């Protein structure tokens, strides 16, 4: 039975395929990011008439959509195979179908961006109109991810059947919760792409309702960030305790926090639309309240993490208020990278509260503060956790071991990342408070004294971005080594055990019908009336524009 501790070789191949695409996206998207910070420093111009906004679209799509979705699905396939058993042939085949659809969709989307037919950024706000191939490619990515989602559900259902009355393995439970979140929220983006944007870009319909399209996008856009975050939480809750040699603080609380994320991460899209003319302020405030509720599971997570660390440290004889910190395995990159990710989640969370707070949003909306914010959440917290996971996941899947040298390099990589991000994200936050806009090429705005004040911050961003690019090269070296060159051997897929002091997990957590029912109810409460209002009081629609 020890075999089941290891991901089956055929399942490992499927997971690795996803991880390869994810890291190729990181390489290309990271390079695009480097070009952006250099342009915005004002000291560098792109050669051969390449547009800043083409590069920006490439960066956003490859890192926000491709790196994340591929890594997450690959990671969850591996986690489910590890904890709920080897996939059936049928499940695995559908997993590959999902993978190829996503990959073909990605290639298609990237092609139309790179030939300059889709410089619409990764939010593709109408009435800017991209080539239909761009929308079609995105559709394939999303539909492919749905197939992978249903594949995971099927595997979970099989486990339930074989284990009646039992609580599912924690990682499997969390993967299922995250895929439900993903399925429910991508319905919004699928609706705007398939019903509005695609037919409109093909010329089948003339005009588009801009506000409805944006609202459907943001119905998807906020849970999207939780779809990125939850796999990082899986690593924190389940994997990190095992790596440090401790125990999971509470299985039940971990499940509860995932269910709360499912409830509250979707009916909150208006906090991205607080400054829009067509939404009633009352409904904006309702969604601000719901947004604040999604902070609660993160407060719980923070407590669980510290508790895991403290309990471990004390079991090793730590004394004093913070003595347990010294007992943590600082030299182990599998721990260190995600831990630094956790630390960065503190300022990230603080910024998130500001962004969601009605009037405070007015200070920062669409300034580069926001860019700084999600480079903390996604590009540090989530990404460093994914890197930390890759350090054991890739060798586990390829039957290799990470050498001491690579581990040391991974520690250096983490430090490089942290330093680069302090420069880049820090200066973005401050420049944003002074008013510097996001998503803009270098400009002095007609030598405006205010805009000239932003330039030193932009140079700091370029320095930070360059350091981060070195970080990307380092992680690519490590990942390539782990995938192809590291010595053969066995690497553990760490899955934590629950602490003895923790309570037994109630079975109610497996009641998905109830959870989905509550999720849908909350969505209907938050969206029905304002959505009807948008359609009933709609202005004349918009034609498409290609202004790049």
């Amino acid at each position, binding site marked *: 039975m020890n075999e089941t501790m290891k991901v089956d070789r055929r399942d490992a191949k499927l997971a690795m395929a996803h991880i390869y695409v994810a890291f190729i996206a990181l390489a290309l998207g990271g390079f695009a990011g480097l070009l952006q910070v250099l342009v915005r420093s004002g000291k560098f111009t792109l050669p051969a008439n390449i547009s800043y906004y083409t590069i920006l679209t490439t960066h956003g799509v490859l890192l926000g959509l491709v790196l994340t979705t591929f890594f997450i699905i690959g990671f969850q396939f591996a986690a489910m195979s590890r904890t709920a058993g080897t996939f059936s042939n049928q499940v695995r085949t559908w997993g590959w179908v999902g993978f190829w659809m996503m990959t073909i969709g990605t290639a298609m989307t990237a092609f139309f961006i790179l030939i300059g037919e889709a410089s619409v950024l990764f939010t593709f706000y109408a009435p800017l109109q991209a080539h239909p191939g761009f929308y079609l490619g995105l559709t394939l990515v999303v539909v492919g991810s749905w197939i992978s989602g249903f594949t995971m559900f099927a595997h979970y259902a099989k486990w339930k059947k074989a284990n009646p009355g039992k609580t599912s393995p924690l990682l499997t439970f969390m993967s299922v919760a995250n895929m439900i979140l993903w399925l429910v929220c991508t319905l919004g983006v699928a609706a705007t792409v398939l019903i509005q944007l695609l037919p409109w870009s093909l010329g089948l319909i003339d005009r588009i309702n*801009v506000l409805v399209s944006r609202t459907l996008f943001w119905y998807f856009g906020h849970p999207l960030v939780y779809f990125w975050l939850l796999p990082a939480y899986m690593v924190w809750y389940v994997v990190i305790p095992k790596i440090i040699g401790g125990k999971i603080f509470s299985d039940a609380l971990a499940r509860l926090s995932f269910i709360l994320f499912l409830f509250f991460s979707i009916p909150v899209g208006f906090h991205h639309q607080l400054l829009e003319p067509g939404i009633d*302020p009352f409904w904006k405030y309702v969604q601000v309240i719901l947004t604040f509720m999604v*902070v609660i599971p993160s407060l719980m997570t923070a407590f669980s993490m510290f508790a895991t660390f403290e309990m471990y440290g004390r079991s090793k004889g730590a004394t004093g208020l913070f003595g347990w910190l010294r007992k943590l395995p600082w030299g182990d990159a599998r721990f260190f990278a995600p831990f630094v990710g956790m630390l960065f989640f503190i300022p990230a969370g603080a910024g998130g509260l500001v962004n969601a707070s009605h009037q405070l*949003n007015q200070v920062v909306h669409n300034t580069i503060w926001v860019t700084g914010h999600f480079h903390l959440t996604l590009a540090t917290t989530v990404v460093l956790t994914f890197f930390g996971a890759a350090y054991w996941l890739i060798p586990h899947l390829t039957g290799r071991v990470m050498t001491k040298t690579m581990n040391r390099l991974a520690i250096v990589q983490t430090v490089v990342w942290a330093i680069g991000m302090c420069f880049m994200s820090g200066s973005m936050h401050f420049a944003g408070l*002074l008013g510097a806009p996001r998503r803009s090429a270098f400009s002095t705005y*007609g030598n405006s004294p205010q805009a000239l004040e932003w330039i030193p911050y932009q140079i700091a961003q370029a320095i930070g971005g360059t350091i981060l690019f070195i970080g990307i090269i380092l992680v690519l070296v490590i990942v390539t080594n782990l995938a192809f060159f590291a010595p053969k051997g066995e690497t553990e897929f760490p899955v934590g055990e629950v602490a003895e002091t923790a309570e037994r997990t109630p079975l109610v957590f497996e009641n998905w019908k109830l959870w989905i029912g509550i999720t849908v109810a909350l969505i209907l409460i938050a969206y029905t009336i304002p959505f009807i209002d948008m359609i009933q009081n709609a*202005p004349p629609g918009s034609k498409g524009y290609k202004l790049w």
Partner: protein
Amino acid sequence: MHIHKYEKIWLFFGIGSLFVFLTIIGVSAFAQGNQPPSCLTTIDPEKVDETPPFNKPGLVKTGDNEYQLNIVASAFAYTPNQIEIPKGAKVTINVTTKDVIHGFEMAGTNVNMMVEPGYVNSFTKTFNKTGQYTIVCNEYCGAGHHMMTAKVKVVNKQ
């Protein structure tokens, strides 16, 4: 479900603070009128030039020390783009767009709005200090997005 005593304390404090924040912004919005811009007025984006007040964009005096500033955004400019406001004026800024989505941000102030085709957006601010402000477009609108700007001068009235 069993929850550790300290975790209860933490959640009580954390959730309590969230509600304090919500109360502050709620009171500020609904009682003191600091709502985010939500004008809800619609307009035909292709007929902006014919629709008042945007057929004659600019600063209009509407009362004692009260003004309306009507601005048309289009790729990649604001009309008008040089504006003088007398010090102490209470100005209601109305903006709309003729084409794609634009932003309207008066850098370093709370004036920050999304400008979307089909809608007028609106925000009121009193200018108590003389000085210069830069208006920038903070929503990507195309190749010239970063060139889209206007200047506001707050001057002592004669």
